[in-house]
């Protein structure tokens, strides 16, 4: 195989750095343009959580297939691994955000001076020290496991020793268990506690499903970029088809959870719950419905046929729409509680997201360039290549 490794093309680096600069400029604009600390903090949190979530999905993708012993994904395993390289970066940025006043701007429950009865009840969980401990535990676990998984995968690639294969499975299982819990609790910590009075048991899984879709979308986008660079030639239509099916299936799964949560709250109409959707429908109506169009209607209609899932011509635009769609989803999750009616999508929002995307690309591609793109010594690699599907 020719694509053992590659060096980062200058052009890509430049583009990425350019994007980061746009981000920084927007941030500065936000700061000096008087958009308010809350809006800036909310934007930073949103993008941070979004790209962190995508990075974690990269790792989750690798881990799940490792323990399921499925063959086909081996071909794109490297992309997933590389995505996880963003986790530490996100950790640092997020820690900075929280340390530099983001907590106070974002979370009502940190305002020790005016707590009501319900917030006082929750104080055993929602307090700054415990929040910080949980923050540390999440990132420590994710970073360590991501590192070990990448390292083991690299070793396995050297000679395909079954020992590393088993070890990879063991680490993957460990990560999945850890992630199953932390993905849920971290979503409560960082997102649900913005609307500190509100609660929903489904919330953690809803956030996870959104991240899952975005993660697959980003994987598809990165795969496309690599293919455009003439790399990843071992990835054939069948593999793309499967990624397309993921994008299609997970979008439906996300919509299923969205509906479950919305329907149950709509149906019972208990004010302590309806307040969440009440603000979103009444103050963020367009965004609220756009969310459904981008994340359900578009993938459902466009990816329904077999061919559309196999063609980048359709798949890539859908992946981009879905990527934007889930950004919108996160926007309507964060903004009503954190910013309120002054929230809007302007230069700050767009610029900062571009900045984060640039940083993400930079980190991921740097990581990609470090290891051979083709895990040819993986025990299931050959199976992956012969992969063929009928539908």
């Amino acid at each position, binding site marked *: 195989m020719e694509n053992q490794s590659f060096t980062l093309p200058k052009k890509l680096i430049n583009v990425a750095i350019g994007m980061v600069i746009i981000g920084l400029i927007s941030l500065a604009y936000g700061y000096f343009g008087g958009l308010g600390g809350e809006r800036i903090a909310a934007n930073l949190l949103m993008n941070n959580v979004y790209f962190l979530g995508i990075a974690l999905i990269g790792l989750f993708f690798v881990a799940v297939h490792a*323990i*399921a*012993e*499925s*063959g*086909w994904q081996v071909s794109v395993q490297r992309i997933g691994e590389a995505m996880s390289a963003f986790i530490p970066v996100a950790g640092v940025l997020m820690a900075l955000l929280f340390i530099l006043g983001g907590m106070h701007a974002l979370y009502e429950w940190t305002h020790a001076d005016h707590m009501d*009865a*319900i917030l006082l*009840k*929750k104080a055993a*969980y929602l307090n700054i020290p415990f929040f910080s401990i949980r923050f540390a535990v999440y990132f420590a676990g994710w970073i360590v496991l991501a590192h070990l998984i990448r390292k083991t995968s690299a070793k396995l690639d050297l000679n395909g020793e*079954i020992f590393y*294969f088993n070890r990879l499975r063991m680490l993957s299982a460990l990560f999945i*268990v850890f992630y*199953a*819990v932390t993905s*849920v609790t971290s979503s*409560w910590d960082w997102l649900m506690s913005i609307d500190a*009075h509100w*609660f*929903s*048991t*489904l*919330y*953690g*899984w809803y956030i996870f499903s959104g991240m899952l879709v975005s993660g697959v979308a980003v994987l598809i986008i990165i795969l496309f970029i690599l293919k455009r660079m003439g790399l990843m030639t071992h990835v054939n239509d069948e593999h793309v088809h499967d990624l397309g*099916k993921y994008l299609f*299936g997970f979008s*439906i799964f996300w919509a*299923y*959870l969205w509906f*479950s*949560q919305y*329907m*149950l*709250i709509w*149906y*019972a109409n*208990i004010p*302590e719950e309806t307040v969440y959707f009440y603000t979103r429908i009444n103050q963020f109506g367009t965004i609220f419905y756009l969310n459904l169009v981008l994340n359900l209607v578009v993938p459902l209609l466009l990816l329904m046929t077999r061919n559309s899932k196999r063609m980048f011509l359709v798949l890539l635009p859908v992946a981009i729409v879905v990527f934007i769609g889930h950004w919108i989803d996160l926007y309507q999750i964060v903004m009503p509680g954190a910013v309120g009616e002054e929230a809007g999508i302007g230069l700050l929002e767009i610029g900062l997201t571009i900045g984060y995307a640039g940083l993400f690309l930079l980190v991921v591609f740097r990581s990609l360039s470090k290891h051979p793109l083709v895990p040819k010594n993986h*025990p*299931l690699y*050959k*199976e992956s290549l*012969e992969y*063929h599907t*009928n*539908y």
Partner: protein
Amino acid sequence: MYVSPIREPLIKGNKDYSQVTKDILAPMAGTPSKYWYMGMTIAGAAALFGAWASFMTVFYGIGTWGTNKTIGWAWDITNFVWWVGIGHAGTFISAILLLFRQKWRTSINRSAEAMTLIAIACAGFFPLIHMGRLLLGFFIFPYPNTRALWVNFNSPLLWDVFAISTYFAVSLVFWYVGLIPDIGTVRDKAKDKIRKAIYGFLSFGWTGSAKHWSRHETISLILAGLAAPLVLSVHTIVSFDFATSVIPGWHTTIFPPYFVSGAIFSGFAMVLTLLIVTRKALHLEDYITVNHVESMNKIIILTGSIVGIAYLTEFFMAWYSGVEYETYAFFNRAFGPYAWAYWIMMTCNVITPQLFWFKKIRTNLVATFIISIFVNIGMWFERFVIVVTSLHRDYLPSSWTMYKPTIVEVGLYVGTLGLFFTLFLLFIRVFPVIAIAEIKSVLKSSGEHQKHADHE
């Protein structure tokens, strides 16, 4: 097709195609064993018990049960949800595992689907029998009538009617479409004329023509694609029965995915319970191997853990919500008068499946069998905990009551178990318990003989 050498063979023994046919058709031939008759007798007796209980219920009324002014549902809906849950494994195996290309499903999908259909039939019995006026049960269908009255499309029970009947119908079609080629095989192997005629009729004239196979594969895949969301929708809608309400312990948004996951969990447990016995009784050890059991056990850990996380989430959120009714409902579950049920549920559903992390245990058939029974019990109690402990102490303490089942309710439950085993015992006599054609299609890549041949 290439299969990595690290994978274990799915079919043991050096089989060729005709051997596969012979092995799988063997249980249908000859007279049934005395164990089969014993099983039929016990199951039939249990079903008769259920018939008596049904009579008591319909004739005298729901008063023959232990329900009361506060606890409107108890064993009836517990059993309903339990059976529906069990009825999820078959379609999950056939549809979702097919979409995820898990080849090991080929040995178990046929019997799991049959079990699904029987379980759904058992499940469907409970919403019928739980009606106070069964004879007017047809009101639930939206049929044109002189009163110009339709039905309430807001009601989750109505959605249930659509969901369960659609699920049963589609599962039946899915199962039968898969069965047609095998019935063709049975027909062609049949010695006497009557069998040949009957199976000839049932085989729909299947010949194995390449064009038919091609279409058959296409519709199988599309049916799988349709059945996958369907299987999610069914238990989701069942969960809506509870989650749409305002009762603390019922109304919680996590119910849909958590119920689905619990359903698959319990379904796999029941499949294991049945197959561990069936493979032995029908000498199918080569087809349903320890590998299959292990794979299923992995699904059990996965779904069991999801269920466990859901339990904890619910519990945490009950506290976190700050809503006193929610908080109390969960406190009452764990420490109230029905705490024993809660801890049985916790032990059986969350703790025992974790033993499957040990390879020794998940590859041990006896251990698996025992744990599968535990899971069946635990999942029954999960529904009991949800239905009864949420209702018995809801908003106004003045109406709090306790519930005790009566012999009639026990009879209804035992009756469906009897029906279930009666039909399953009939099934293994009448249809091939393993999908012969599907086994043959993976025999080359995953059979022991071939695998050895490849690498020697």
